[in-house]
C-alpha cells in the first residue's frame, strides 16, 4: 500500500472510530456531527472528481446538492400526504424509501449536470466558474419562488425516510448508511481516477492540446466527469435532506457551492480522501470555534488562505509530507 493509500484509509478509519467512541460514550450529537461531515465529504468527493482531477472549477455544485435534497424532500412529502407527485404523462407516487429516492436523486442531478455541463464546458477559466455559478443561482431563485414546496421557507418532512431492515432514526444506523455510501463513493472515485477514463481526464487538464493530438476529445471526457460528479453530489444532497428532515433553497445557494469547494481545498485538491479530511476539519472548526464566536468563518478564511499559500496539497498533502499524489 502506498503512503497516500494508507492516509486515505486512516482518515476513513478515524471517522468510524470517532463514531464508535461516541456511541460507546452515549453521545448521539457527536454521531450526528460525524454523519454531517461524512455527507459533506461525499458531496466533496463528487466535486473533487472535476475540480481535483479534471481541473474544472465548478462554482455551481450546490445545484446538484440541492436537487438531490429536493428530490428526497418532495418524494417524502408526497409519500406523507398521499398525493401523487405527477399525474402526467404517468402517475408517479411519492416515496419514503431511500432505495427509491437515491436513484431518482442521482438521475435528476445527473440530468442537470448534463445540461449545465454541456453549456458551461464550452467556456473555460473564469467564464466556466461564472456560468456554473449562474446556473446554480437560477435554480436557487426558482426554488425560492416555487410556493408548492415551501418556497423560501423550505420543506420539512418530519419523518426520516426508511431503509429496509434498519431503523434510520437511530443515529448510528443512519451513520452506517452514510458511511457505506461514502466508502463506495471514495472507491468509485479511486477506480475512475486510475482507469483509462481517469488518465484521459487528467491529461485533458494538464495538456489539453496533447489530449487532442492523441485522439482524445476533452469535451466528452469532461462532460462525462461532470455528470458523474453531479450524481455523487446529488446523492449527498438526498442524504443531507434526510439528516435534517428538511430542505430549503439554502442547499442550492452559492454559499453551499463555496462550502463544498472549501472541503476540497482544505482537505487537498485532487487527493482521494481530501474531501473527507476537509469536511471533517470544517465541521470540527464550526463546532469548536462556532461556540467561541459567530464570526468563526473569518478564522476559517484565514486558515484557507494559509493552506492555499503554504500547503496547496491541503491536509492530506501535509500528512503525506508534501509528496506527490
Amino acid at each position, binding site marked *: 500500500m502506498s503512503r497516500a493509500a494508507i492516509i486515505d484509509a486512516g482518515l476513513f478509519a478515524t471517522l468510524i472510530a470517532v463514531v464508535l467512541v461516541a456511541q460507546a460514550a452515549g453521545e448521539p450529537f457527536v454521531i450526528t456531527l460525524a454523519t454531517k461531515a461524512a455527507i459533506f465529504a461525499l458531496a466533496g468527493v463528487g466535486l473533487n472528481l472535476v475540480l481535483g482531477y479534471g481541473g474544472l472549477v465548478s462554482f455551481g455544485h450546490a445545484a446538484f446538492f440541492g436537487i438531490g435534497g429536493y428530490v428526497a424532500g418532495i418524494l417524502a412529502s408526497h409519500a406523507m400526504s398521499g398525493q401523487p407527485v405527477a399525474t402526467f404523462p404517468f402517475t408517479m407516487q411519492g416515496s419514503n424509501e431511500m432505495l427509491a429516492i437515491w436513484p431518482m436523486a442521482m438521475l435528476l442531478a445527473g440530468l442537470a449536470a448534463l445540461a449545465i455541463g454541456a453549456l458551461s464546458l464550452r467556456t473555460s477559466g473564469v467564464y466556466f466558474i461564472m456560468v456554473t455559478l449562474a446556473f446554480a443561482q437560477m435554480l436557487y431563485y426558482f426554488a425560492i419562488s416555487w410556493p408548492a414546496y415551501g418556497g423560501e421557507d423550505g420543506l420539512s418532512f418530519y419523518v426520516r425516510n426508511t431503509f429496509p431492515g434498519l431503523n434510520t432514526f437511530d443515529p448510528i444506523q443512519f451513520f452506517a448508511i452514510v458511511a457505506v455510501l461514502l466508502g463506495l463513493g471514495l472507491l468509485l472515485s479511486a477506480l*475512475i481516477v486510475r482507469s*483509462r477514463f481517469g*488518465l484521459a481526464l487528467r491529461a485533458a487538464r494538464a495538456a489539453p492540446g496533447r489530449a487532442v493530438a492523441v*485522439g482524445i476529445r476533452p469535451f466528452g471526457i469532461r462532460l462525462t466527469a461532470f455528470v458523474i460528479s453531479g450524481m455523487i453530489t446529488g446523492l449527498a444532497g438526498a442524504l443531507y435532506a434526510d439528516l435534517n428532515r428538511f430542505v430549503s433553497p439554502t442547499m442550492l445557494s452559492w454559499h453551499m457551492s463555496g462550502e463544498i469547494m472549501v472541503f476540497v481545498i482544505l482537505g487537498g485538491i485532487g487527493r482521494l480522501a481530501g474531501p473527507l479530511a476537509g469536511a471533517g476539519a470544517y465541521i470540527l472548526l464550526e463546532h469548536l470555534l462556532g461556540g467561541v464566536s459567530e464570526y468563526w468563518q473569518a478564522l476559517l478564511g484565514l486558515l484557507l488562505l494559509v493552506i492555499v499559500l503554504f500547503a496547496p496539497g491541503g491536509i492530506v498533502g501535509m500528512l503525506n509530507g508534501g509528496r506527490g499524489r
Partner: protein
Amino acid sequence: MSGPILEVEGLQKSFGALKATDEVTLDLRPGEIHALIGPNGAGKSTLIKLITGEIAADAGRIRFEGQAIDTVDAAGRARLGLARSFQVSQLVPDFTALENVMLAVQGASGESFRFLRPALADPALIEPAAFHLAHAGLAGRERVAAAALSHGERRRLEIAMALAMRPRAFLLDEPMAGMGADGARDLTALLSDLRAEAPILLVEHDMDAVFALADRVSVLVYGRVIATGSVAEIRADPEVRRSYLGEQA
C-alpha cells in the same frame, strides 16, 4: 501504395488582413521526408495546425489516404493516423514518460470511456508504450516524470508519442528546436529511420538537418509555397536564395 498519403490543395487561412496560408498546395508521398522551411512568420505552424485540424481553413481541401478529411475534427484526424509533434513540447508533466506514451496508445485505440479497470496496469497499454519509448531512445527512462526529463529527452518523448499513434503520416513541428549539436545529430538519425514507418512532413529551422534528411523541400514565404523540389533544386533556386537561404547557402 503509389498515390500520396496526404494531399493539401488550395488551402487558405487569413487572420484579419493577414494571409497566413495563401493557396498552399503540397503533398506527402509514401516513404519520404518532405521538409517545410521558411522564415519566421511564414505560416509554417499555421499550415501544420490546418492539417491537424486544430484550426479551420477558410478554403481548400485536405485529403488523407484518398479520403477528404475537411469535416473531421483534430482528435478524429489523429485517430486516422495523422500523428503530430509540437514545437514546444506538450506533455503531461506529472505523468511518467511511460504514462505519456500509454496515453497516446490509449488515444489511438479510441477506448477512453473505460471507468473501472486500472489503466496503469494494463499490458495492452504498457507493452506498446515501452516498445515505442525504446524505439525513440528512451529505454530506462520509463519511470521518470515528464517534467523531470531533459529537454532532449522531452523531444524524444514527443516522437515516441507520435509513434504510438500507429501513424500513417507524421507532422513534426520543429522536432530539433532547442537541441544542441550532438542531440540534433542523434535525432536526425532517428528521424531518418522513421520515414520507413510513415512519411514525414517536417517543419524545421535546422538547415543541416533539413538538407541531410529531406527527400523534397517546400519553401513557404508569406504563406505561399514559392518553390518545391529536391534539396539540390532548392539550394540552386534563385528566388529561395534571395528570400530565405541568403547567399551563404
